[in-house]
């Protein structure tokens, strides 16, 4: 029954993905391509943060590693961009495992702080080896163009590629978090002591989750580079890592379906809704909507509103609307707090 409902949900998502480009402008399709990219990254981070309870403030850097892998292979080694996507994922995943080995010995805020070092050091490393990475000036990739003998608008091509990958990665994330391994992840999240007592090696589970999440972010980063057609250190600021965490929280940590909303939020709040809301304001009040940082104020206010209305993210809000019960109370059984407790513990999909 459970698997059946997920199949229906997935079929509806696939149908929406197929229909969207026919009713959207090309620019919207281009934006929705970035939604697919964020969906992949958020699913990866959700496996680590939502399901395993390990907060990372550094996963934007794994997107950066994936993006640079793609860029260097395409620009300097003449690879076809699509073939670099799995390589980018593997490189990011391996670095994720390497980082996860020592880092997952930390718990809670200490881990978060350790992961914060990843984007910081990535920016330094990228600038340190300009002959390899292009330094501060970065590298331009080829412009978007349709391939395989299909002639269509570059934005549509980008949409098709990103969602084709996302619709593979999304079920993959589902397969990872269900079953034996998924239970191990949740056991580590809910109580490390209980997990260890039941024979779960918390260190290796956490390291594996770190590697898997980095792999997802690496794949997302490869598509990001293909879509932006340019990389430099400024393209992967610390904000990006924070943005991914915001996406998880807004979507609903511990729910993969919630990540669809998280991805929509992350893409549209900054580029479309923020400026749109500001324009509305400027028509009503004669305030300076272009003052430095005013876009961030809208972003912050919307974020606060979302968290007030839906403390367990969109996934929790939908659940509450349907059942009339608080999402946190219904989804997560009350349990004694442990050092690795995330703010919202939600059951798997």
């Amino acid at each position, binding site marked *: *029954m*459970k698997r059946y*409902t997920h199949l*229906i*949900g*997935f079929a*509806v*998502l696939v149908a*929406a993905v197929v229909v*969207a480009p026919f*009713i*959207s*402008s*090309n*620019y*919207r399709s281009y*934006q*929705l391509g970035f939604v697919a990219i964020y969906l992949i990254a958020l699913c990866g981070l959700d496996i680590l943060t939502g399901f395993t309870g390990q907060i990372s403030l550094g996963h934007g850097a794994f997107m950066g590693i994936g993006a640079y892998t793609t860029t260097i292979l395409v620009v300097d080694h003449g690879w076809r961009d699509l073939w670099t996507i799995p390589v980018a994922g593997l490189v990011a995943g391996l670095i994720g495992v390497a980082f996860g080995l020592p880092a997952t010995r930390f718990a809670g805020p200490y881990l978060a702080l350790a992961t914060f070092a990843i984007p910081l050091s990535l*920016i*330094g490393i*990228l*600038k*340190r080896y*300009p002959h390899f990475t292009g*330094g501060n*000036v*970065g590298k*331009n990739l080829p*412009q978007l163009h349709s391939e395989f003998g299909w002639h269509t608008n570059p*934005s549509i091509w980008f949409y098709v590629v990103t969602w084709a990958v996302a619709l593979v990665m999304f079920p993959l994330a589902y397969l990872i978090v269900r079953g034996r391994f998924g239970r191990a992840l949740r056991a580590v999240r809910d109580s490390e002591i209980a997990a260890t007592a039941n024979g779960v090696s918390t260190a290796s589970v956490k390291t594996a989750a770190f590697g898997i999440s980095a792999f997802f972010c690496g794949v997302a980063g490869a598509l*990001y580079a293909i*879509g*932006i*057609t*340019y*990389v*430099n250190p*400024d*393209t992967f*600021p610390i*904000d990006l890592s924070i943005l991914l965490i915001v996406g998880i929280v807004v979507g609903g940590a511990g729910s993969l379906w919630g990540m*669809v*909303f998280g991805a*929509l939020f992350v893409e*549209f709040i*900054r*580029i*479309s809704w923020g400026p749109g809301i500001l324009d509305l304001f400027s028509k009503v009040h004669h305030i*300076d909507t*272009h*003052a*430095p*940082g*005013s*876009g*961030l104020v809208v972003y912050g206010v919307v974020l606060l509103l979302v968290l007030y209305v839906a403390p367990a993210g*969109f996934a929790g809000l*939908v659940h509450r609307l*349907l059942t009339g019960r608080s999402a946190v109370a219904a989804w997560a059984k009350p349990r004694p707090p442990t050092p690795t407790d995330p703010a919202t513990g939600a059951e798997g*999909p």
Partner: protein
Amino acid sequence: MKKTFLLIAMALAASTVIVMTAGATSKATPGVTAKSILLEGTYPLSGPASGYAPIPVGMGAYFSYVNAHGGVNGRKINWHYEDDGYNPANTVQITHKFVEQDHAFALVGGLGTEPQLAVRQYLNDNKVPQLFVATGATTFDRDYASNPWTIGWQPDYEAEGSIYGKYVVKNLASAKLGVLYQNDDYGNDYLRGLKAGLGESHQSMIVSAQPYDLSATTPPAVQVAKLKASGADTFVILATPTPTIQSYVIATKLGWHPAHVITNSVSATDAFLTIAEKSGSDNVEGTLSVGYTLDPANPIYNKLPGMKLYRTIMAKYAPKANANDGLNLYGVAKAWNVVKLLQSLGTSPTRAGLMAAARKMAFTPGKKNANPFLLPGVSTFTKGSFQYPISQVTIIQYQNHTFQPQGSLIAGRGALR
């Protein structure tokens, strides 16, 4: 069973959001209607480079002024700009929006070397003017042949470097130069220009040139110490603002008092030098740099018609802005050139026509149509293979918290016009 509903509801809601975000359709003439012309640009209104935020405000003030006086050939200029936070990933997405959804006539004054590099190929592929980018990276002017839809505006870093070289040969003939430069395209553009300006026979005047990495977490203390040890008596700083301020302070702490300090114009502003002074440097006074616009912080320009017009425009159309901030004036001066180009296009402007006009500008003192917001005598001139709109500057010297112009104009490229 409830979970079934939950999941289906979420998937449906997701598809609804996607449908709701579906956008508009395209128009026949991009950005030009019977009554308006749409110009757009990306600027860092947040993030590390948000100090440049006054520039689009100044541009908007000038466009409002033009609109209030009948617009351009009967059309009002519709000026719209958005925050990219100096992140090229944002610049690319917003630029796609400007081109594919807003259908801007042209992108004007986009700020930052890297953000503008990120969208250059896209704009050229789509034949959308990337007019007067706000960066001095030489590539935006030099590589016009491969990027026919892109053009810079301000003096390029290479030309500025060459002006320091020429100035040193002429005025500081016995100087021994110690050069600190950023180890990337930015610093190398400047250094290449400096050597070209010195010329083959005078390159030995550089007794030491020390690169530093922008990624370095420590100030360039070792480099400054090496420059001091080299016996240099003239400190040439070709750096971005933060390392520049640090260099001033380090030199003082090392007890190095070079006879002259030359600082590139990007870092030599009143604000940055004041910080260096307050941080304990005693080498700030007398710093040499270059200028090409009027300086609203310096009262000696107040009698010029350009400065009077600038203050009138700012008071009426951007009353909340700090009119003494030279970045507003930079915006106004650039907008003046944009309007002149649009006026020359007549009643049916095209993108190709705009670029053709930008490639053949002659706003010169000789023709009595020079940009009034630039220093007297500075022309905006392009022709044939000469695609460096502003290439003349004057040497300025920091005295008592303002920059004073020193002597006449110098041509960084070509001849004075």
